[in-house]
Structures are given as C-alpha cells and as structure tokens.
C-alpha cells in the first residue's frame, strides 16, 4: 500500500507486545486500542510472551496480514532489529514502544527515559536518607533493556553517593521479589532502602519487609494501580511512574502521522513522575 494514504479509517495497525503478563504492558495495549478505536483504525495484537524468537515470528504473521504500520514493544532491543529490517524492506513503517530497536529504520520511539528514571530513584533515596545510605537493588529480567537502563541510571548516582549492599535479580516478578527480599534482609539486616526495577518486585519486597517489622524505604518503577494504592496506604514509599497508556496512545498517533506523510520526531519522550505519599492523590483517577 502506498504511504500517502490519508484515510485513517482504512488503517490496520499491528501491535507486538513483549508480554501481557505484566500490567504495564496491558496498559500500553489498552492505550493503543483506545486511541485506534477513537481514530477508527483496526488493531491486531500479538504477544511474544517474553521470547525474542517468538516475537519475530509474530511480526512475520502480522506482516502476512498486511498491516499498514507496526507498533513494536521489543522483548529485546538487539534481537528485534532483524524484524524491523524485514518490515523496512517491505516499506511498512515501524514505531517502537517502551524499548528501542538497535538497528533498522524506526520512525520513532515512544518511551519513558528509563535511565533517567533510575537516576530519579537514586536521587530520591539520597534526599531521604542522605549520603552513604545502605541500599539494595532488585533487578528486572536479566538483559532486558529496562533492567539495564534503570540499573545504569541508578548506579550513575548510587555508586558514588550511596552504599549498594545487595543486588539480586527478581525477574520483574512479585513472588520472587518477596523471597529475594527476605533473603537480602537476612544477609544485610541494616538495609535502609530498596530500589526495585518495577512495582511488582517492589510490592513483593514490601511484603517481606513488613513481616520483618523493619522500616525500610521501598521505591518501585511503573506506577501500577497496585503500587499507587499501596503508596496511598503508606506502604510503598515511592514509585517512578510511567504513563503506559499514554505511551500506547502516542504511538498510534505517531503511526498515523507517518502514514499520512507527516514528520515525526525520532523519539517521543513520555514523562516520568516520582509518586510519593505526598503527591499520590493527584495521580489517582
């Protein structure tokens, strides 16, 4: 199909998400679907279930269904490149969401600045506890760009100003967050704060901390509904809130713009926001 199509109502959008087993991505999907509906577009969703290879197959299947634009939330930035390149070769524009693609021609990346988010978390701990505070870090799925970037941002500040006493992966998973935190507490009873790469792990970690009766700051990432409720209840300390629905909406708009031949920016940043007990009521809808 030609690029000069202007009638948005005929557009078929293909969305490939890394996984739907995480509320964050469900929200992205929701944003995409709502915006597309508003514009009268059709959306086909495929879910890679965190498997980079499956994602490539999924995208091939989307192309087979003659989607006009691909919205891709990569499981991995490197691995997705070949799929982007095949879409490119067929002239299908690609928009990536939340995570970047290393190679290939991507019209635009709609995402939060994860590295910045990591820095925000470290900064917050620093403000609350001062220099040299003992912190633990719960990492996300090893190798995921979110893990790498959030970790990087966090370390940018924490390596110099804080003392990281423990660093373990809990795979973005709530249960693992709980178990891992219990163990960390045993090995390092004097931990003062925890930064978890997402809210799921943060909530799990909080359960462990509560059972131990300790008073420890817990900072998450995402701004999930559960996390927001928890902050409001005074349980979780803070989260670096993303706006997943907005990411989805902006991605659809960007896709439409590209198809209509409009210019789009290389990256469309979606604001991150530090949510704490003080400002949580503004966030809640």
């Amino acid at each position, binding site marked *: 199909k030609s690029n000069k199509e202007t009638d948005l109502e005929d557009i078929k959008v293909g969305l490939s998400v890394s996984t*739907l*087993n*995480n*509320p964050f991505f*469900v929200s992205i999907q929701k944003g995409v679907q709502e915006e597309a509906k508003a514009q009268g577009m059709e959306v086909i969703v495929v879910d890679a279930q965190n498997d980079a290879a499956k994602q490539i197959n999924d995208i091939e299947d989307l192309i087979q269904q003659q989607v006009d634009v691909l919205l891709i939330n990569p499981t991995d930035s490197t691995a997705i490149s070949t799929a982007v390149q095949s879409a490119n070769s067929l002239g299908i524009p690609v928009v990536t969401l939340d995570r970047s693609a290393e190679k290939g021609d991507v019209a635009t990346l709609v995402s939060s600045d994860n590295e910045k988010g990591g820095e925000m978390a470290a900064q917050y701990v620093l403000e609350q506890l001062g220099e040299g505070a003992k912190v633990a870090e719960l990492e996300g799925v*090893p190798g995921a760009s979110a893990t790498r970037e959030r970790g990087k941002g966090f370390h940018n500040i924490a390596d110099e100003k804080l003392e990281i006493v*423990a660093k*373990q*992966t809990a795979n973005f*998973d*709530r*249960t693992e967050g*709980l*178990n*891992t935190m*219990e*163990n*960390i507490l*045993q*090995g390092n*009873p004097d931990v003062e704060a925890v930064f978890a790469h997402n809210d*799921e792990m943060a*909530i*799990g970690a909080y*359960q462990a901390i*509560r*059972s131990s009766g300790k008073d420890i700051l817990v900072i998450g990432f995402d701004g999930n509904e*559960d996390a927001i*409720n928890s902050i409001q209840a005074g349980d979780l300390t803070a989260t670096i809130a993303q706006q997943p629905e907005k990411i989805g909406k902006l991605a659809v708009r960007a896709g439409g713009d590209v198809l209509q031949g409009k210019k789009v920016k290389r990256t469309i940043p979606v604001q991150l926001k530090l949510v704490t007990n003080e400002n949580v009521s503004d966030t809640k809808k």
Partner: protein
Amino acid sequence: MNNVLKSNHIGNAMQKLGPLVGLLVLMLTVTIINPSFIEPLNLLNLLRQVAINALIAYGMTFVILTGGIDLSVGSILALSSALMAGMMVSGIDPILAILIGCLLGGLMGMINGVLITKGKMAPFIATLATMTMFRGLTLVYTDGNPISGLGDSYAFQLFGRGYFFGIPVPAITMFLAFVVLWVILHKTPFGRKTYAIGGNEKAALISGIKVPRIKVMVYSLAGLLSALAGAILTSRLNSAQPTAGTTYELDAIAAVVLGGTSLSGGRGLIIGTLIGALIIGTLNNGLNLLGVSSFFQMVVKGAVIIIAVLIDRKKAA
C-alpha cells in the same frame, strides 16, 4: 540370607538418612561461611519460604510413587489462586474462598487423572497439555493482571503471613500436612496401593486394585495441595499473580528426587521429600546470604542436584 537381610536394613536407613545428612552438611557449610544463617529468625524464614514448595512436592511424591509425573502443579496453583482471589474480591468469605479454591484445585488434578487413566495419555503429556491450558485459563480469567484488593480478613492474612507461637503459619501448615500425608501414605491401604501401582501396575490390576481410581485420587490430591500452596502464596502476596507458580513443577520434582524417591515409581518416602524441599530452600536462602550472584546460583543448584543424586547412586551400588 542373613547378609542380604542386614544390607537391606542398612539400605533402608540410608534411604532415609542420605538426604538428611546432605541437608545437615549443607546447613553446616552455610553457617560456617555466614553464621547469620543459623539465627532462629532466619530459620523460621526458611521454613516459611519452603512451605509452598514442600506442599506441592508432597503431592508430587504421591504422583511419582505411582510412576507418574505432574507438570501442571504450577499452573494449578496459579489458576486456583486467581479463582480464590476472584471470589474474595466478589465478597465471599476468604476462608470459604480458600476452601472452594482448594477443591477446585483438586478438580483440576482430577482432570489430569482422568486424562491419564480414561484417556490413556502418558502423564508427562497429559499434564504438559493441562499445564498450558490452566495457565492460559488463568491469563484469560485475570486478563493478565494481578488480582488485588482482597480485603483485610485477619484469618486470611494469618494464613500466609501470620505466626502461631512464634512459628510462621505456612510452616505449621507444612508440618501438619506432612503428618496427615505421612499417615495416609504409610499407614493406610490407599498409601499401600499408591506404592503397589508404581511398583508393578500390572500386578496391581491383577490384585483387583482399582488402579484408575487410585490414580485419579492421587492426581486430585496433587491438585489440592498445589491449590493449598496457592492459597498461602495469595495471602503472602496479598494478591493473585497470573504468572505465579511458573516452573514450580521443577522445584517440586527436584525436592522429591533429592529426597531419594525414584522417578520410576514404587520407591520413596515422603519424609525424604520434606528434606529435599529443605535442601532446596537452604540452597536458595544460603546462596543469597553468601552473596552468590543469582546467575551463579543456578549453576550451583544444578551441580548440587547432580552431586546429591550421584552420591545416592554410589551408596545404592
């Protein structure tokens, strides 16, 4: 003849003692490197962490004793946890919800049992299929989101997070279940039939044992115990996670095997499974305490399984 007899008794003792010695050596090692391991608080933590795997592994012990396997336990845990949470959110009394949830877990196990007996499917395949199906159903039911807002029922919170005379409730559940299941396995005709089916299924049939019925009951029991584990997890996380329990079948099987039960059925002890679960728990907890990176922990865990089984084989020979 007398010789055969003696070595037999020693063999039996070994079967029980081998895993126990392994556990003690492991605990000692960890304690020497990091004495905080042996602190009562940590040990209680350990017990609480182990409870979920132990409960699933108990059921797995029965299944493996019949010569079967159950890959679906993790998915049953997740689906029944989601259903319990769903009931709680819709206002049903949490304890009632847990009860119903456990029964539903038993029902899912029963489906496994029926596929295996009536459908004559290999247990591996039948439970591989239901593992996929139950997980899919969990995701469909929860729409991929955790279910939270389970209310503030004290009893429900106690179930996963509470203490009783200073001992975590999940640990108590684990020990109570052990006692009940030990009696069932070693002191009732049902238990004896479980062994008989795994030891020689054809002979069991000829003896008039209703093999299909016993098998269905065994898989139902495994489902029920997985759901019970799911209830504990739901309380601990104060929510139901759609991805809960993924790969738990592997931990449970590992616990059973580390406990000295034979994968080909007919031979094994449930006390071994409890010890096996404690070994795995100690490894997880201990390696964390020792600050071993999570990547390297996997290498160590794999190696421990190999070494434990190899030592066991050596003794048997």
